[in-house]
């Protein structure tokens, strides 16, 4: 049995090495390097392993132009079959992003699984996965450690919980947000890029869809920051009280009351 899997991949700030001087010589905050969202990479690996084992296809999808890392191309170098980019000039919030992705996933067509990481920049809250499942009408599960069984129409996932593991069965198609804790030489460790694919696919065109092409008219609905106000500064008055004087202490207590 073969499965068609869509993996949503993102580029994120690399926040691992925040030790050291945050300001450059010019006094400006040094930009953080960027990297492939590690949990998305884990999700891609799960998808590729299913494909290696069961056959089928892996399609990868991302929103926005690449910054430092072309995550879609990195997926192709690792063996993904197809990649699509949804173009947008805007810095979208999760809801708007999910709307674009859901439309693109419908465009891609029939699929069994949509995988993505629990996502570091969302505080590992898997907001995108939830929104996406809601829009697609799929079942969804977050904090998935691994897929323990995949049969036609049904997937069983393991989640690590306190004192043990929880196994959850879902109907397909489903949206799964993976959060994988990798051990040394873990078989779920993401594979490296393949040298030949890298040479071959360096300039392979990646189809792009705009919101309009996906049938989403007008400006995306999204939350905006309407303004900021600071808390008013509190005025704190200090009094010196003679600790040896009963009368002064009594007066202080009276004032406080």
């Amino acid at each position, binding site marked *: 049995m073969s499965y068609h899997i869509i993996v949503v991949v993102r580029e994120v700030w690399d926040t691992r090495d925040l030790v050291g001087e945050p300001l450059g010589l010019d006094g400006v905050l040094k930009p953080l390097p960027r990297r492939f969202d590690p949990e998305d990479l884990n999700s891609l690996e799960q998808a590729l392993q299913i494909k290696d084992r069961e056959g089928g296809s892996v399609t990868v999808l991302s929103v926005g132009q690449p910054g430092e890392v072309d995550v879609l191309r990195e997926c192709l170098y690792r063996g993904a079959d197809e990649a699509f980019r949804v173009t947008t000039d805007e810095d979208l919030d999760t809801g708007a992003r999910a709307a674009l992705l859901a439309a693109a996933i419908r465009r891609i067509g029939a699929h069994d699984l949509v995988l993505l990481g629990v996502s570091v920049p969302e505080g590992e809250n898997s907001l995108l996965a939830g929104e996406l499942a809601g829009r697609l009408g799929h079942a969804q599960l977050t904090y998935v450690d691994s897929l323990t069984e995949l049969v036609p129409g049904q997937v069983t996932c393991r989640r690590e919980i306190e004192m043990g593991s929880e196994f959850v069965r879902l109907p397909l198609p489903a949206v799964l947000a993976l959060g994988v804790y990798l051990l040394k*030489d873990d078989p779920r460790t993401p594979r*490296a890029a393949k*040298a*030949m694919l890298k040479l071959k696919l360096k300039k392979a065109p990646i189809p792009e869809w705009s919101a309009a092409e996906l049938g989403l008219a007008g400006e995306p609905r999204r939350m905006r920051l309407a303004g900021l106000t600071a808390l008013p500064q509190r005025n704190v008055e200090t009094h010196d009280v003679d600790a040896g004087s009963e009368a002064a202490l009594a007066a202080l207590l009276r004032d406080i009351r």
Partner: protein
Amino acid sequence: MVTSENFYQDNPDLRFVMEQMVDWAAIFAMRGDTGHAEAPFDSVEEAREANLDMLSDPIGTIAAQRIAPRAEDVDRLGCRLENGQVIFSEPLQRNLDDLREAQLTGLTMDPAYGGIGFSKTFYSAAVELVSRADASLMNFFGLQGIADTIQQFASDEIKNEILPDMASGLLSGAMVLTEADAGSDLSAVRTRSLLEAEENPDGDWTLTGSKRFITNGCGDVLLVLARSEDPAKYGGGRGLSFFLVTRGERVQIRRIEEKLGIHGSPTCEIYFDKAPARLIGRRGHGLTRYTAWLMAAARLGVAAQSVGISEAALREAEAYANDREQFGKKIAELPAVAVMLAEMRVATEASRALLYATSTFVDLQEGAEKLGLNVEEKKYGRAADLLTPMVKYYTSELCNMVTSTAIQVHGGNGFMKDYPVERLFRDARITNIYEGTSQIQVDWAVVRLVRGELTAILEPYAGRVWEDIELAELAERLHDSRPLLDQATACLKQRGPEYRDLMARRVVDMALDHYVGWLLLAQAEKWRYKRKVVRRFLADALPRLRMNHEIVMGDRTLDLERLVEA
């Protein structure tokens, strides 16, 4: 252990050499990677970027994230022999799987056979990166020269049969040369190869005899040097041919060696019991042509392995010295330790400079040969022939010095298995022995030095104007050392072969101190930090060169070199 995400990205010196010193444009042009309609790349920039990108990922990432963390286990577990089968340890098998899955098993092989077809310069860097992670793994990764040899000399039938599976990593190989009584002197090889049907000149051959010290002798494709001609008619090296033997029941692994280092690499003793064999190339050319070709590639590989080990040891020592406190301060701040660290760093960077200068000449020569440019082929071939033994000798000896010093920096801790420098020191020890000992390399090099083949290599520096006053001053000192080198070389020529052999090492050392000085000076032109490196290098190299000059030119009698009581 010092950990890293990417062994290419975290190495400023390797990146500097790759990005600024290597003349990629010349290499690509000569190899035909760019500049014509069917070239694999549209521009030099594109080809260069593809090369450097590949070094970073997957090679740099796999070396750092997968191979290096397993090195300690690979060393501890070694390989086993059970019922004639060599069993790899689990971490070693994982390393091999990782290399194969990342498609890194056919880096230099022709794309027509499924390889990537990259240059030797690129390959040297790949070997350096892998060896920094685990020196023993290089003995698998570095065997790509075997496929190159088949590609270069075997028939189309053999090539089509074997090479695609070697490129994909399905088949591994071994070069099967050494015998119990034929080590450095391969012309003494006795393994017999007989034509089964003497009347049929194209018939099948069989091999009978023992080979030992065969790295990865359990491989699937064995390139065997064997005696095919009647010793009475063609004695010594002229009677040897090259054969291809595939693994089968007539190829028996009798034992694997217990070794000081590179435990992840099985060293096998093989018995060929009338094993079916196929001739590669022409009869009688086994040693002079094919082994020489294979050896040259292997020597460059060992040089790259040595640089990788030095890099690993240097990093361990620097990290330790910046962490360990004695006498109320970090030991790196103590002059006695600081000087050791500086020596290690200079040695590693000098080794690297020579490695890539040599690799470039090898690429230019191979490219010129393919294009049929006779003049260029001769010119670059002479340079490659001289520099290959020199770089193997230089980098492997320095690698031994660097790993030993790394233990010294660690003090008592370095002697213990708790720190990786102990393993690095053991692994380093083979580099100046296999693929020809240092003495053999010196022997090869000195003959070519006496023939004056360094002159052309030094040509670009002879009349060069250095605009920077600091560099000009250093260049002046290097220029001043040239007559000493020339005098010593002339002296060897004049005093005859025995004197030459006794003094060979000193003159090769002089040539190395002089030439590497120029390489580092050229680096200093492009990176300010390198001024310190070249100054530090010359501070030792020039007095050493003068010392060697004085000894070579002196009137010492030959007896002084042999302190055996009469």
